[in-house]
């Protein structure tokens, strides 16, 4: 007996609490390992991708990368439902990422490019991937562009075909889209110096 009158328990005895903890820790490890399996397959795909551009396109695709929607349960469900409906649907983020990486070499460092299609993902991806070149939605932005709504309100919405206006406002290029396909128009490209 213990001094407080409770029945003695051998210190080698496995208590019910220890059993409960063993089950909980085992479940935790098993479920975590199960969640890590798709990541192992993803790692293999990354490892065999031919170059950084291909790896980035894979990583930016929310449906192909198990890391993309981590922590966002509803977004994951939506992606799974969409995948069931249309297996060929492209990922907007992956398309945007690939576009900015592929076209980056055509954008002079430190230049300004107009985003004729105001969209927060394009704007923010472009400003990172083309840095120090700047992607803008208007020549003079006075209001803080905190989100997509601000961006759309502030946008000048000039067509990329208006090269005179682009040149007059100091833009080296302009980004627009035909359907889901993004295009970069370099203002002085193809013209006599």
């Amino acid at each position, binding site marked *: 007996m213990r001094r407080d009158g409770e029945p003695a328990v051998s210190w080698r005895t496995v208590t019910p609490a220890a059993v409960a903890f063993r089950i909980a820790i085992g479940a935790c490890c098993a479920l975590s390992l199960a969640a890590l399996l798709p990541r192992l397959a993803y790692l293999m795909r*990354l490892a065999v991708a031919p170059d950084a551009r291909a*790896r980035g396109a894979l990583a930016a695709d929310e449906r192909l990368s198990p890391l993309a929607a981590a*922590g966002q*349960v509803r977004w994951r469900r939506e992606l799974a439902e969409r995948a069931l409906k249309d297996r060929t649907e492209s990922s907007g983020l992956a398309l945007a990422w690939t576009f900015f990486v592929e076209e980056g070499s055509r954008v002079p460092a430190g230049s300004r490019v107009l985003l004729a299609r105001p969209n927060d993902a394009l704007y923010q991806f472009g400003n990172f991937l083309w840095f120090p070149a700047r992607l803008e939605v208007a020549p003079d932005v006075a209001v803080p562009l905190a989100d997509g709504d601000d961006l759309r309100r502030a946008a000048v919405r000039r067509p990329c075909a208006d090269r005179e206006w682009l040149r007059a406002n100091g833009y080296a290029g302009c980004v627009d889209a035909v359907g889901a396909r993004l295009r970069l128009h370099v203002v002085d490209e193809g013209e006599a110096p």
Partner: protein
Amino acid sequence: MTAASLFAVVLIGLQGLAAIELLVGMRRLGWTRACAAALPIGLVAHATLALPLYLAGLPVSQGSAVLQLVLLGVAARIAARRRPAPIPPAREPREQRAPRTHPWRAGERLAAGLIVLVLVALAVTAALEPPVEWDLLAIWGLKAKALGVSGTGLELLRAPAFAYAHPDYPLAWPLALALEPAFNARAPLGGGGLLGAAMLAATAGFAAVMLRRWGRRAALAGAGLLALLPLAGAQAVRGQADLPLAALFLVAAGLLCAWTEERDDAALAVGVVATAGLAILKQEGMALAAALAALSLIRAPAGTRLRLAGALGAAFLAVVLPWLFLRSTLPAGAANSFTDMTPSRALSGLARLPEILAALPLYLGAPADWGAFWLLVGLALAGLAAGRGRLRQETWLAIVLLGPVPLYLLALSATAWEPERIAEVTLSRLALHFAPLATVIAVGVAARCGTFGREPGSLAAAAGRELHEGPE
């Protein structure tokens, strides 16, 4: 690129070790504990030095980090010479000491191998994957590029066109990312960098160091739970700032706990620096630092409160104040729940709190993000409550864990977003801040119950004897 990225990790870690040597001496803190805390403390040391150097005209680069390391090393050397001799032998507080070692069993070797394998796989993924995560590109990575050698400087953050990048967010993480080649505007496209993955390894390491008093298996369980945690792995690979914040919160809470509960003087100086560092890492860090400091002041014995308050004040002046001055010159940017929170906004938003709380089971119970992690933590907290304070350290850590939660909930309720969107975007991410500390508590309580056996010389064995023979 990978070698340069590895060098960035080494530079941060060495700055952490130099800062620890400067503050207390690595021997006094204990070599293992110092090494485990090096990377999170290095983040704080790097940011604390890099910011004034940047403002003095030196952009952030691996070269500037080497200069910082030399400065810190010289200061540490001088401090070590001036420290009163003889330096106490490298003894760690009783509860921090590892039990007498016994041969590694096959299961323990297997567990250690699995942990290393998972961490290496995460590091390889991070080294292969270019920066693609939206928040990283829009906020942390953009600032890292701006602060780096080929950057355009903080003027970028003052432009309304970049308000989406939250100009008033703390800069410690971008200052560290600026050392990574991926965030050098002139570097070719490559992997996103190893800092995030290294931070997860450091978190697992520090959790193991805190748990080793319960025996080797408990230490392995703590490190394993963290290394395997799916959301932590994703954040580590994607270079998000939440995992470094969680790591630093663990270090700060662990060291301050060692001081308040064990009178471990060496832990105080590093603990207060880690606490102050929380505030320069993320906005939520302000809430974590405030709660941890307040709770520690309440918990500290009456005669030592002034000393703790002085140490916290000094750390705040050295680490946080320069950032607050700089922040006062930057625009607020996008809506921000933590800095925009006023009592009236918080009160008016309280009605939305039940809706946010109702979403918790959906997000914290998602096996793809958490496994059964929060179930284990819930079990441990219930065990702790039933234990009636027998586990002094774990009880105190649980109070520290739960202390900042009301502040988080108030901030969430004051946000202008719809509750459903808040839950989707923030709940899992914010919960990650508490995960490493929750792991230490859960494994500690589990070890007390004999979950990992009673390793001779460990606290688990002592607890078993107490159970057998009754308390002394």
